[in-house]
């Protein structure tokens, strides 16, 4: 197993810069998630680590070896693709053993490694099937199996769950977390789904337009976002943003912060109150366990209120809300978070 170190990475396609001065240190056996909206460069970054894209400048080191000029197959990385990229004409066994065969491993060793990976992933009964005969979740497992047999130092995942339906996605998410514990491997995981990142990762790298917005543990990003973008991206539903003056006028305690332009409060940190900020209910989502209420403020800002249990608000109802103590985030003109 190994560390991965990205130092001053740049990547441009023609004149468009897609990765701009990225510095990330991935510890040994760490699970790191790269998240960001589509087009933020997270997949490109992963492909650069895999060696499928060249780097314009900067260094990629796996272990203590700089691998910029090393062939993808010699970087000791294995990648699981979004489309799984299984070879359709090969059986599950052939798919998993192909990499070992072309690199000239002895037959017996290949059989053993494939059997071992199949055991871990419960693929034993499917080894002679072709990908076409498998379900989405099974294909996903084969793709992971193909990565495992190569004994890589680093596993790379490119949105591996996004082709699965919601239920299976939750199941595979748990399996991936367990697999990480079992294999004790360094893993880098690209996703646009912040829930996946929050639940799986030891460390999250938030990217936007090729620039790192913040790096940190999941709860660190949730509790202490460094800027408005991270605040909005991490957490679901998104953090509510209201103008400072609105918050002060509503009498929110502690809203008066020097240089602050916006006040952010997560929907789950808002509570209904006698006084406070008043708005009009325009849509209610009943999720059973909780109720999401969308409220429009007089200045046309939309905010969301999440409350446990069932609440029957009607469209047009007036509600007053205020934040729970110490849950406010303040942002300055440059969208940077202000820490007190």
């Amino acid at each position, binding site marked *: 197993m190994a560390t991965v170190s990205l130092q001053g990475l740049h990547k441009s396609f023609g004149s468009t810069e897609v990765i701009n001065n990225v510095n990330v240190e991935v510890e040994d056996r760490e699970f790191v998630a790269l998240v960001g909206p589509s087009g933020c460069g997270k997949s490109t970054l992963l492909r650069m680590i895999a*060696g*499928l894209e060249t780097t314009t400048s900067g260094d990629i080191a796996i272990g203590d070896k700089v691998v910029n000029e090393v*062939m993808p197959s010699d970087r000791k990385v*294995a*990648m699981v*693709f*979004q*489309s799984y990229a299984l070879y359709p*004409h*090969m059986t599950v066994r052939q798919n998993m053993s192909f990499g070992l065969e072309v690199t000239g491993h002895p037959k017996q060793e290949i059989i053993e490694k494939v059997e071992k990976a199949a055991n871990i992933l419960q693929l034993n009964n499917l080894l002679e099937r072709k990908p076409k005969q498998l379900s989405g979740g099974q294909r996903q497992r084969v793709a992971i199996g193909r990565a495992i047999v190569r004994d890589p130092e680093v596993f790379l995942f490119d949105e591996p769950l996004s082709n699965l339906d919601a239920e299976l996605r939750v199941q595979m998410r748990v399996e991936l977390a367990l697999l990480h514990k079992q294999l004790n491997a360094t893993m880098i995981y690209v996703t646009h789904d912040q829930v996946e990142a929050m639940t799986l990762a030891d460390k999250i790298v938030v990217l936007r337009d090729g620039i790192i917005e913040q790096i940190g543990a999941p709860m660190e990003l949730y509790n202490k976002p460094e800027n408005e973008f991270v605040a909005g991206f991490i957490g679901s539903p998104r953090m509510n943003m209201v103008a400072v003056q609105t918050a002060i006028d509503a009498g929110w305690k502690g809203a008066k912060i020097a240089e602050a332009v916006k006040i952010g409060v997560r929907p789950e940190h808002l509570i209904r109150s006698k006084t406070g900020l008043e708005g009009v209910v325009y849509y209610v989502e009943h999720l059973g366990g909780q109720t999401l209420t969308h409220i429009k403020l007089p200045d046309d800002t939309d905010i969301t209120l999440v409350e446990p249990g069932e609440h029957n608000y009607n469209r047009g109802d007036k509600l007053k809300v205020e934040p729970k103590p110490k849950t406010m985030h303040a942002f300055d003109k440059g969208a940077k978070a202000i820490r007190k």
Partner: protein
Amino acid sequence: MGNVNRFAPWLFLFPALVYFFLLVIYPIFGSFWISLHDWNGTTFQCSDGRSLLELEEDESCRRVPVMTWVGLENYERFFEKTPRDFERVKNYWVGIFTGEPVRWPRISVESKVLLNNIKWLVLFPAAIPIGLAFALFLNQSPAWVRITKSMFFFPFVLSPAVIAFVFQYFYDPAGPLKEIYSALGWSSGLIGDQNKATYGIIAAGWYPQIAYCMIIYLAGLTAIEPEQIEAARLDGAKGWKLLKRVILPQLWPATFIALVVTMIGALRSFDLVQVMTGGGPGRGSTDVLARYMYHKTIFDQDYGYGAAIAVILFAIMLVFIAVFIQQMIRRDEEA
């Protein structure tokens, strides 16, 4: 309702079936029937047995051909000298391999025709790997590749007759290959020489066939997911291994179509031979079954013999078609 559903498919098939029986099935059996006769193609009589000359003025009758039943004689004629010629050709090759000085034997026109078709069958499919190579080369993204791509399609849109004429000029002893001919000592040029002419025509046939195979392969290549190639690169497969183990197996449907079209094309080669050499030089040195059949029927008015050649050609094709269909069914069952 049930009745309608039962008859509806046949109703829709009816027009196609009419044409199929009239233009395919009936002529096949008709050819076979004629091949058992001697007929010059122009003599007819009335169906009631009267000669056309006995007809009254203004009287008409259903005309049927006047053919003499000869049984399998036409087939015997065709294969009369082939066993002897087979021996001679065999001895020639034995001589070549044992180092004895031998000359190419004199063989019958029929044997030449069969031999030429075999040459076509063996050499014409070279267009397939060449087409694949072009397709792999053109399946890249640099701008200049995309621009030049259309030029590679060009031979495919030319009429075979045009290609034949162009190659005729190209092969001319006084044409662009003049220097090469004189260096090699080939004074009559490529298609002016009995022993080389067929190869020259096959090479001309490659020109559009390579383009055709290339188009089929380009279409096949677009169906291969780029991520699979990347996965293979991570797996350490590159070059020949990548081609053989990942790309080619997935191109099997394209290869199959290319193979079918090229083999059938080799068997029914006609136009290039007709335009470039007319079967010559000499008697039948470049002739092939399809052209020889045409020649015997139309020019020698030997309809029975022509029909027999048609049936022989059909039988050979049937073997290939049967193999192809069997392959197709097997692949379908696997999938």
